[in-house]
């Protein structure tokens, strides 16, 4: 009767089986076939003498196959003779056979040794260098210096002097103020902090806040200095919004000019003329997709296929495997290609989106839009000519250095006001 294989995983017995199999593998075992009229007696005799049996399988009416420990083989033979059973060795595994097998498989051994050496070597080197925190400084410059210092793909991790690299990098590059090197497996992460640009002038330098654009003042918050305008005033580009002096200090004959600071927001209007394409239809993904693992070498793609792509219209998306993301360092590239099924659907609010896009393009980011008015809308074939009037509230104040002329003008102005005040006081007296 053919043997039916029934497997049961995660059971207690499986663990026993696994450990006993491992133990048998180490100690050595013999697979035997016992033939005789009283096979059961033979098995009981073995058990009674403490010989463990495993993988018992009935092959015929008078035949049983089982596995016994190598050291008990001679003993088993005597019990078989007692029970008038015949023993046939099917398979023998012990130290001698292992050694013989290993002698025969020299190349396999050499291959295994080579594999382990390669694994040890590759895991002891840096293969990927990741740069973080670079905005203005070019990565090539950092890489060049770092390579000179000994950090490059293939460098041994033990030989990398982290402190030396960090210090030398900061000393050699004036644009960097801090560098931190972290080695994570075979990946070196170099994190840097760039030097920030110095502000135009210091807070101790007297200055005024002037308008950089025309507008109607919406609100003004003075942090330092004195307000030169009030809400509702119409201002033009270059007008002073916050004066850089303090009147009270000036009367007390103390250094009166200060570093003016504050927030001035003005209401402004933008005229936007834009031509947009009619896009009544839009392409969307249906959600159905097919994922294929691909290899590429020298620009040629080898997908692990698959058959035909089951979509009529689709778009491709490539996702490179992170652990193999080494640019051109590897002779081949491995990535997942996902085919997304796409469908064209009618878009109803395309005009609104187009207007929003046009506004976003023409209005500064810091401006807050309060009203959008369509002045003109002309549809021509596949395009629409739009004229928009957009009302926004945006900050218009900008700090500028105080000139000597400005200082003199204000001193004269205050002196005049003071004289007028004195004259009026005298008149009253």
């Amino acid at each position, binding site marked *: *009767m053919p*043997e*039916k294989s*029934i497997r*049961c995983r995660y*059971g*207690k*017995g499986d663990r*026993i*089986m696994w450990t*006993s199999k491992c133990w048998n593998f180490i100690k050595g075992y013999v697979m035997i076939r016992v033939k005789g009229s009283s*096979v*059961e007696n033979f*098995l*009981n005799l073995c*058990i009674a003498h*403490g010989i*463990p*049996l*495993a*993988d*018992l*399988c*009935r092959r015929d*009416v008078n035949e*049983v196959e*089982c596995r016994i420990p190598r050291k008990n083989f001679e003993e088993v033979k005597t019990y078989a003779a007692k029970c008038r059973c015949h023993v046939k060795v099917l398979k023998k595994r012990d130290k001698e056979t292992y050694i013989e097998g290993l002698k025969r498989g020299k190349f396999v051994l050499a291959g295994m040794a080579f594999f382990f050496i390669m694994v040890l070597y590759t895991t002891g080197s840096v293969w990927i260098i990741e740069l973080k925190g670079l905005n203005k400084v070019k990565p090539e410059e950092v890489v060049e210096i770092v390579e000179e210092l000994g950090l490059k793909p293939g460098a041994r991790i033990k030989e990398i002097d982290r402190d030396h690299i960090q210090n030398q990098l900061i000393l050699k590059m004036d644009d960097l103020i801090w560098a931190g090197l972290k080695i994570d497996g075979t990946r070196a992460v170099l994190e840097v902090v760039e030097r920030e640009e110095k502000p135009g002038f210091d807070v101790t330098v007297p200055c005024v806040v002037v308008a950089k654009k025309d507008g109607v003042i919406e609100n003004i918050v003075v942090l330092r200095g004195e307000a030169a305008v009030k809400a509702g005033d119409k201002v033009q580009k270059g007008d002073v919004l916050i004066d850089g002096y303090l009147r009270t200090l000036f009367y007390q004959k103390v250094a009166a000019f200060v570093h003016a600071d504050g927030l001035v927001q003005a209401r402004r209007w933008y005229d936007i003329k834009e031509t947009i394409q009619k896009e009544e239809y839009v392409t969307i993904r249906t959600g159905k997709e097919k994922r294929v693992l691909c290899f590429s070498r020298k620009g040629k793609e080898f997908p692990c296929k698959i058959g035909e792509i089951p979509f009529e219209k689709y778009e491709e998306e490539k996702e490179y495997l992170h652990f193999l993301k080494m640019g051109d360092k590897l002779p081949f590239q491995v990535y997942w290609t996902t085919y997304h099924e796409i469908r064209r659907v009618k878009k109803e609010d395309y005009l609104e989106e187009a207007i929003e896009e046009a506004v976003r393009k023409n209005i500064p980011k810091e401006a807050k839009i309060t009203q959008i008015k369509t002045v003109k809308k002309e549809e021509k074939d596949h395009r629409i000519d739009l004229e928009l009037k957009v009302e926004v509230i945006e900050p218009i104040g900008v700090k500028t250095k105080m000139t000597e002329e400005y200082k003199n003008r204000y001193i004269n102005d205050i002196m005049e006001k003071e004289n007028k005040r004195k004259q009026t006081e005298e008149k009253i007296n």
Partner: protein
Amino acid sequence: MEEKLSVSVLKGISYALELPEDIVFNMPRITMIGNVKAYIENAGELMKYTTEEIRFVHKYAVLKIQGESLRIEVFNKEETVLAGKIDQVQIRQRGQDHVD
């Protein structure tokens, strides 16, 4: 007669002390996983072994397991592990009924 007396005394002690019978009387203890595996402790002597039926003889009972493609994965003094498609497990007390 003496044996019966000792059994009854042991029964009384195990009942009073709430001791498990499999330890006191060295009875077979069977744990099954579905119908694919059976772990038997104190299984006793093997009386019959075919792929359809395995029979163990114990001091107090006869244990009969029927099924298809039955095989003994582990067989030693402490534990016996049976695998295959187990359909039926029968235990008869020895001396009272005969197992067919």
